[in-house]
């Protein structure tokens, strides 16, 4: 492994910015976030970076590394060509605050528009429920989400077309799927998914699934089944016929 590497980091704020090169010592076993911290401590104390657990469990340090949305804490330098400068940019689908930090607050506001969990009455006299493990497992995949928003970042509806006010994006479709398929839930979100959250904007390019650090099968397991529910409710020709009859 090389003993030094150059990191070309985007520095700037909402008014604009530019890439700046930093050369720093690197050692075996380092991840991108380690290099950023080293630069921050030694060369650029005001370099803005958001991070927290540094173990791939909190989803704070999302950025674009050589153009690919990734967690900086889980990207080892040994996976990257260090002969060239390593390009680090903030996520593109959200407004920049400063340097590598973006304003992701829209995700939190949009989540509130999804109807919350509404359980059926308890199954047992003591106020508890009986649930089979198989039913738990179906939604556990969705509940692994660490809310890193990399899927939102790569979604072209948000990234290219900026439809944040009309479309909730893959993360929140996974959230809606977790609620819709929750074994105790009684709420109906299908109408909202079609009319408010515009699930129809998704044309299943699977980019979101490919960047998910938790390997959630976002498109096949969450979005497509939700689309099927919308189709069942609104576009099934047989049901339509029954309604006419």
């Amino acid at each position, binding site marked *: 492994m090389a003993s030094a590497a150059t990191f070309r980091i985007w520095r700037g704020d909402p008014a604009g910015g530019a890439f700046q090169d930093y050369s720093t010592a690197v050692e*075996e076993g380092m991840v991108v976030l380690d290099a950023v911290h080293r630069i921050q*401590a030694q060369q650029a104390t*005001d370099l803005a970076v958001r991070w927290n657990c540094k173990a791939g469990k909190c989803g704070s340090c999302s950025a674009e590394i050589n153009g690919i949305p990734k967690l900086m804490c889980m990207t080892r330098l*040994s996976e990257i060509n260090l002969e060239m400068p390593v390009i680090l940019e903030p996520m593109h689908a959200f407004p920049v605050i400063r340097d590598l930090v973006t304003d992701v607050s829209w995700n939190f506001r949009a989540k509130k528009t999804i109807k919350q969990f509404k*359980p059926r009455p308890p199954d047992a006299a003591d106020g508890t429920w009986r649930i089979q493990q198989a039913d*738990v497992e179906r939604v556990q995949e969705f509940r*692994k989400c660490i809310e890193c928003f990399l899927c939102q970042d790569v979604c072209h509806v948000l990234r290219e077309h900026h439809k944040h006010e009309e479309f909730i994006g893959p993360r929140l479709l996974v959230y809606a799927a977790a609620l819709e398929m929750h074994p105790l*839930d009684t709420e109906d979100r299908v109408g909202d998914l079609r009319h408010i959250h515009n699930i129809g904007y998704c044309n299943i390019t699977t980019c979101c699934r490919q960047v998910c650090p938790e390997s959630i099968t976002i498109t096949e397991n969450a979005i497509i089944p939700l689309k099927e529910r919308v189709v069942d409710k609104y576009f099934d020709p047989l049901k339509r016929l029954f309604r006419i009859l």
Partner: protein
Amino acid sequence: MPEFQRFSYDVLVIGAGGAGLRAAIEAGAAGAKVGVVCKSLLGKAHTVMAEGGIAAALANVDDRDSWRVHFADTMRGGQYLNNWRMAELHAKEAPECVRELEAWGALFDRTPDGRILQRNFGGHRYPRLAHVGDRTGLEMIRTLQDHGIHTGMEVHMECTVLSLLLDGGRIAGACGYDREKGRFQLWEAKAVVMATGGIGRAFKVTSNSWEYTGDGLALAYRAGAELQDMEFVQFHPTGMVWPISVAGILVTEGVRGEGGVLRNSEGRRFMFDDIPDLYKEQTADTEEEGWRYTQGDKNARRPPELLTRDHVARCINREVKAGRGSPHGGVFLDISWIKERMPKAAEHIKRKLPSMYHQFKQLADLDITKEPMEVGPTTHYMMGGIRVDGDSQMSTVPGLFAAGEAAAGLHGANRLGGNSLSDLVVFGKRAGRFAAEFARANGSVTIDETEIQSTAAAALGPFDRGPSGENPYQVQYDLQEKMQDLVGIVRVESEMQQALGVIGQLRARAERAGITGNREYNNGWHTAIDIGNMIVVSEAITRAALLRKESRGAQFREDFPGKDAEWGKHNIVIRRGADGEMQVERRALMPMPDELKAVVEEMK
């Protein structure tokens, strides 16, 4: 003169991990207007890292379990220095709090008849931990977050709190700044709940994330609250030591439970060399017997690798200090050796320890089915914290409450695994309820404008000093290094005296910290503020550890290696004296009521 954005609440919750969110939900349900201030984004707090589960005597798996057994287990684990009232309430109320989480959408693993499944864990007599695979903490924080956002609480994300405000001895709110723009904020409140978590970042090697700089403890201390049990810092014996990027990340006890062994650089299983007399009868004599134990032979005794966490951590430390450590300053933990004992060992390891297999594969490029891991002790949890009333969670400052890791009492000298998640919901709920009651019973507060102006001016000091001041990151590294070396797992009078001197020098350097750039999302500025808090908790840990001249639970004194009966009747309490100096005193435990004494005796 700095401008403040102003907000007014009945209850202000500082911290948005499990305890803070549970407190905010409860205060809101009691009719209070609630504000939440947190250092990170919502849902990123350290609660997400918890794996094992949440301890509650639901008795779903073993119907012999009850609050009485859970209470006795918790007291034994804490070496009877616990606040018995908190241990009692915790054991009684944890089951209800787990059921509440389920009603809000948490999905725990199930028993065959569809109830919440529970697993075994160290120190718990019966299977007691409700869990979701190995990501229970994430399930818990997401459940509280998703429920909480619909309860009307206002959340201020990514804020630094600079000080708590007082109005004639009573709490009046807090002031700080938002990280995004660096704008000063004033959160006026009739009651405040501190739910700021731990102090792990005061040490070099820790399983804690960057936030855990002891802010809540330092803020409460400066506001006049008492701290307690600060000497009890839990060091987990097995954290990763290499690569540097992951030093401190936990390696689960399960590796040793499945037959993993600890060896030094000479290949020796050193744990056999030091088995405490108290455990001789329960510990295997030979490697053969230890192996049979891990494979479920009920006639075999446990291998010495499965002795208590504090003891294993000290043995590892001794090997490293004696020069028999691994290349990166740990020892070897080997599970791959079991291939000598069983066919298809690699598949077996991957099935039993999937997350460990992936953790090492992904972060260390190491295949644990083929090679030994390097491990060493890691700072894990703070048993001590803000001293509170067991029922209401109110500190010694009227209107200031504390819950979760920031509060002291429940765990005494040592915490049992699984009791931290239940701590968050049981006492978060109580703190929220009593804070709302306090706000209702007490009128509005008056803010001391001069004080907030001087706080803001002091906070801007690092900008005035600029790049010629001390680099705040360097001060932080130096403090972590010294705390690790001088007040770590093995403590001795002379080293801790030396630490006090170093802390004094670091305080002076921290006061001269200087930074570049502007106030917008400036990590250097945040660090310059954090180090002031880290220095307060480091001094408190050191002074308490110096005063307790015995070894008990998480505290090990090389110069006083035994337990002392007299110290077994006392906590150590710390408060800020009138002259600004830190005062340390020993205080007798509250006498335990006879019915609880009877429970302890019965379960012995």
